Structure formats: structure tokens, C-alpha cells
């Protein structure tokens, strides 16, 4: 009777672990899924760097457009 019970118990355990293990494996997987995590690491400082760099590039682009306009006026005057 006891032997029967233990075998039943081990079967149950195996079944349960078979059920749970893939779940836990999946949970680990979802952590390990390769995403573009670089920008989210280090407290998301990379986002700040991106923002500042974007603003900087915007200002530079603006300078180039002003320069283009001035060049046009300079050529018109000649």
C-alpha cells in the first residue's frame, strides 16, 4: 500500500514538475529573449544621451539651414 502510494506520489511529482518546469523554463526564457535592451540598461541613461544628442543634432541642422539662407542672400547681392 505504502509502495503503491510512493510510486503514485513520484508519478504525481514527475507530472507536476513536467507541468511546472516548462513554465519556469519559459519564465527564464522571457527574461533571456534577445530584445533591444541596450537602451534600457544602466538606469536608462542611454535614453537621456539619445535625447540630448537629438537636440544637439537639431540645433546643428538649424545652423546649416540658416547658413544656406545667408548664402542665397549673399549670392543675390552680387
Amino acid at each position, binding site marked *: 500500500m505504502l509502495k503503491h502510494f510512493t510510486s503514485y506520489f513520484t508519478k504525481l511529482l514527475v507530472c507536476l514538475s513536467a507541468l511546472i518546469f516548462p513554465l519556469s523554463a519559459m519564465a527564464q526564457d522571457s527574461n533571456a529573449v534577445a530584445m533591444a535592451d541596450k537602451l534600457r540598461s544602466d538606469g536608462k541613461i542611454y535614453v*537621456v*544621451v539619445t535625447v540630448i*544628442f537629438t537636440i*544637439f543634432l537639431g540645433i546643428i541642422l538649424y545652423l546649416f539651414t540658416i*547658413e544656406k539662407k545667408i548664402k542665397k542672400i549673399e549670392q543675390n547681392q552680387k
Partner: protein
Amino acid sequence: MRKVWWKILCILLLSVTIIVGLLMPVPALNILNETIRNLYFHVPMWFGMMLLFTVSLVYAIRFLKTQDLKFDIYSEQFAKVGVLFGSLGMVTGMEWARFTWGEFWSNDPKQLASALSLLIYFAYLALRGSVPDYDKKAKISAVYNVFAYFIMIPLIMILPRLTASLHPGNGGNPGFGDLAAEMRPVFYTAVIGWFLLGIWIATLAIRFQLVARKHLLSTHNVEMDVFKK
């Protein structure tokens, strides 16, 4: 002035400043913490301001020598961008001070001295605006420019160093000088980059003014030629 290579250099240097300056490891210091990275952004404003004022001074002297109004325009625009940089340096410095010294303004000798020298250059702009006659304006402001420069230098460079200051490196505060070996390359990159950006903005303003005042410049220089003959 119209070449493109130094503008690209400027973009490269400032890109390095922003990306490397924000991401590279820095020395961990009390009080300063991560704000030590402001060294790449706040301090180059002041360095840039002084360099731009130096260029402005050179053109003021060239104007006094040649009486060519073109140089007056150069001098004015470089001074204006210098004032812009100085104002940004002042504001960023106050923001930084709020979170390291506790107050936006704590009458620190360097704060006071740089505020004074900024006021002197504000007065330069006010002086320019108050003289309607262009020749007089140019001459008076060129002479004033020379005086302003040689008041600014001791105010910023010498006086604050003679007294205790809250600034890093002064009066026993943790400074950059002795430990900045790893920060130095980025810092110099930042200074050159921001200075080039200042020159860029100034040259755009100069080219605009040269076009806008073309008539004035040509008649003035014709008169000057007659005068010389």
C-alpha cells in the same frame, strides 16, 4: 569662415563630448557625484566665452587700426555670442550649485566675479545700442571692448583664486586638477567643440550683418578712402 571642415570637426567633437562625456566612467567624489560630468558642459561655456571675447578684442583692435567697419561688425558679433555663452554658463552654474552647494546663489567669489564681468559686457551691448552714429558707435565700443577685456581677465582668472571659493579645486574642495587625468581628454574635446560652435554661430551672424549693412559699409569705406587720399 565659409569652409565646411571645421564645422564637421565641431559636430564630431561635440558628439564625442555628449556620448563619451555622459557614458564614460568618472571619478566618484563626495558632493559632486555624477554631476562631475557637468565639467564637459558648464565649464566649456566659460572657456568658450573667454575665447570668443578674445577674438572680439582682436577685431576691436584691428578696427581701431584700420577703421574698417567690417571689423567692428566682427567684434560685435563675437562679443554677442560670448555673452550668450557666458549667460548659459551662469545659468548652468546656478543649476549645478543648487544641487551641490544647496543654493542657486551663494555669493561665491567666482559667481560674483563672473556676474560682474558679464555685466561689463552687457554694458558693452547697451553702449552700442545707445550711440546712433555708426562711426562713433564703432570707435567708442572698440575702445570700451579693450577695457572690458582687461577687467574681465583678472575678475575671472585671478581674483577668485586669491580667496576661498566653493568651486571645485578652490579652498579645499575636491577639485578636478589632481584626479582629472581620465577626464582631461574629454574636457579638452568639449572646450574646442563648444568654442567652434560659438565661432560658427558668430560667423553666421557676421555674414548676415555684412549683407544687411552692405550699403553702409560700402559708402563708409568710400568715404574712408577719400579721407585717406
